[in-house]
């Protein structure tokens, strides 16, 4: 299937979903004017991708969202739950990395809360070097 690439804007993150490398990235800030419109094609892509993904292929989802509004947090949780379900029901080899810089305490707390909600998928909190 085709990769999904969305360019970063002031209010939406860069999204790189890659069915060849199986490494996926969400990087930037998320406060779109219409959150549903922004995340709907992403959810469609992910559902198709995950249903086709063989169980023995490892896939990694990286989130480096510096700032997000509350409706984006719901959209992000929808993605996390979707991934979690595929690990729970079909035992796929998926993992989620939540990246943040050490000074961003809020991002760390949000990551901790999201991690609590995940039942099966490994949800890793990863401190990122600031000058990377």
């Amino acid at each position: 299937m085709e990769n999904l690439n969305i360019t970063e804007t002031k209010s939406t993150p860069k999204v790189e979903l890659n069915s060849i490398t199986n490494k996926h990235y969400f990087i930037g800030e998320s406060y779109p004017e219409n959150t549903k419109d922004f995340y709907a094609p992403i959810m469609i892509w992910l559902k198709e991708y995950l249903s086709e993904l063989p169980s023995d292929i490892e896939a990694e989802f990286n989130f480096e969202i510096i700032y997000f509004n509350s409706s984006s947090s719901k959209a992000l949780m929808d993605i996390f739950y979707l991934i979690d379900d595929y690990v729970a029901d079909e035992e796929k080899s998926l993992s989620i990395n939540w990246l943040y810089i050490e000074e961003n305490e809020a991002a760390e707390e949000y990551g901790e809360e999201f991690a609590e909600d995940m039942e099966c998928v490994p949800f890793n909190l990863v401190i990122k070097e600031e000058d990377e």
Partner: protein
Amino acid sequence: MKKSNKIAILSEHQEEIVEIAEIIKSITSHSYQIYDFNRVDECIEFCKNRRVDLLLAHTSSLDIILQQRESLPDKNLEFILFSSSSKEVESGQNIFNIGALDLFRYPFNRDEIEFKLNRYINEYKNMVKDYNRTQKQLDRVTRISDRQQSELKDLNNELDRYKHHLEDKVEEGLLEIKALNREIEDTQKEVIFTMGAIGESRSKETGNHVKRVAEYSYLLAVKYGLSEKEAEMLKQASPMHDIGKVAIPDRILNKPARFTEDEFILMQRHTEFGFEMLKHSTRELLKTASIVAYEHHEKWNGRGYPRGLKGDEIHIYGRITAIADVFDALGSDRVYKKGWEDERIFTLFREERGEHFDPKLVDLFFENLEDILAIRDRFVDDGTE
């Protein structure tokens, strides 16, 4: 290992419980844990304390179940009714309207029970999962929103503080600028006044002479119709009308006897010297001063010096300073003469109307004589200046 689904079975008849339990236990696709009760109160009590996924109850317990369901932790506890005989089905009562998921009729069909239980359990579990997730999402979203709101509030407060700080600073800066401006203006006035005073002191004029000339000039300028700004400018510039006298040697300037013709010609040149000293400035005030210095000895009839200008050719500043200067000079005592009586001065002014002086200014002088004399009284020479 998957969690087993908890099913409570309620019937007064133990044999019914056994029959249904046997069927449920034989289901292999899902794991079910069975709790059986003969008494409705025991069953309700159990449901209050334990999580139960589904309740299977005999139709005879329907009323009490409906009553008690509200008091359970899970108010939406799903239940399926069963009847022990085909006769027992309530006549005309639609079980779906009262909230039951289904009705298992006697004799029980194993396949039907298996199919329906599995389906309900799956649906129920998904519903619970969705519900829990939605609750969590709501909870998270609310907390994130709260947090962001409080951050926003903090930022707004900080912004307010900055704004006030900035306003204070601007206010402070403005006050400082105002103070500095006043300082500059005051210094300028003082410098000009002092320059004028140098000219006067060298010719032994009294210090108040320049002050009076300044005030007379201001008054006449306003009455003549010049703007307040111009009148003020003239007031500040007029003390410099004799600044050119610094270029005249003392022996001539303070000569007690009559000037020789050469001396007189040199003496007259103080107007040109003053003009030369001041003309290079681009400052409005010094330009005004240069005009006053140059033209205050010109006469309306063209017989003045240095250029012999006539009538309107003489700048209004020059014409005004001329009348102000002469009035004050005539009335003041000098080393070599006593001051003139007022009447003598007024007679002279009337004679010189249209000759030495601008006729309009002479008229204004007399019209405002009271104010002019008040100025003279205010800056009277008392010997201390």
